[in-house]
């Protein structure tokens, strides 16, 4: 049976520098039944609102002034630095290249949603974070939702979840590359 969500019990923070997109997101969330929808227009005020309103779900754009959605995610995903480093973060962006999805995942987002936005796409992401939360992984250079979404019966590499030493991913180089490609 499909999981039903009571949106009235969730508090949302929408961070997007485009006023039209914020209005669209607010409209969709209210349509789902949400009552508490807060807005911020850039990464800096988004972080301030995150601390002030303590949202259950953050929906953020990627490309924004001051600091972008990727940097915002990395600031939120600091264990011990704020009241909820585990908050669900949905990144909504016009970027659609595969390398962007990988970079967003490695920054610690929970869900990625490429524009154009649809009611169905947004609803599915929210249901997913509410009904099927993933555990968090903390390594030397990553803190965020488990990036493994499925298990492969054909996997033949080292099993890091059975102890022992294993490879360490270098994610900073990729993030830098994505931020300043030109």
């Amino acid at each position, binding site marked *: 049976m*499909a999981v*039903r*969500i*009571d949106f009235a*019990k*969730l508090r949302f923070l929408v961070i997007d*520098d*485009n006023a*039209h*997109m914020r209005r*669209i997101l607010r*409209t*969709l*969330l*209210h*349509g*789902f*039944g949400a009552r508490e929808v807060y807005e911020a227009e850039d990464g800096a005020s988004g972080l301030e609102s995150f601390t002030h309103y*303590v949202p*259950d*779900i953050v929906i953020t754009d990627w*490309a924004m*002034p001051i600091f972008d959605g990727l940097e915002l995610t990395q600031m939120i995903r600091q264990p011990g630095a704020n*009241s*909820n*480093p*585990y908050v*669900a973060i949905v990144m909504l962006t*016009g970027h*659609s*290249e*595969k*390398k962007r*999805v990988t970079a967003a995942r490695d920054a610690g987002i929970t869900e990625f949603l*490429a*524009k*154009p*936005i649809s*009611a*169905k796409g*947004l*609803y599915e992401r929210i249901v997913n974070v*509410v*009904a099927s*939360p993933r*555990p*968090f*992984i*903390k*390594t030397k250079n990553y803190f965020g939702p*488990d990036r493994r979404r499925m298990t492969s019966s054909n996997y033949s590499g080292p099993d*890091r*979840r*059975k*102890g022992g*030493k294993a490879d*360490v991913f270098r994610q900073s180089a990729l993030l830098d*590359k994505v931020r300043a*490609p*030109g």
Partner: protein
Amino acid sequence: MAKETAAVTTYGDHEMITPQNKLRKAVSDKPFDPNDDPVARAEQALADLSGNFSSWMDEECERLDQARLACKTLGFTTAYKEKLFHAAHDIKGEAATFGFPACAGAADSLCRLIEYAPDPTKIPVKLVDQHVDAVRAIIREYTRSDAIALAAELNKRLREVTDEFLLHENRERPDVIASILGPSIIPNG
């Protein structure tokens, strides 16, 4: 303010943390009502808002035009380049929602031109003009019966010329060329 509580399992080089699921409060235990479709409600709410979309797109086009003008008259500085990129990027993301999906291709091509040009001062001004004018023309002529076909042809040609320029400018940067030619997660996007 109360801190999160979480269960932690430690492995060789990482920890798996299962935080307290604070969102479980929102999982509804009410019986499923087939007549209550939240997605349909949201789509209707968006449809009610759609009377604004045409004028919103005009505002976005004006913003794009102003950003183009700033780059042309004041130079391709980081600040003006970013303004132009953001204006084009927003149009790319909003085009389908606002009812003008055929202009997304030209806006996307302009984003790629700005993003992947190693030296923005070498971007041909004429090529920027062609992109901005194409976006505006597609939106202006959207009610024409052949508008979609013309837009598709325009988008295709802009993308070809842009890719040719970018591949030449990045000929010593194979990693950037890989990104330029890399896949999109959106089919035909």
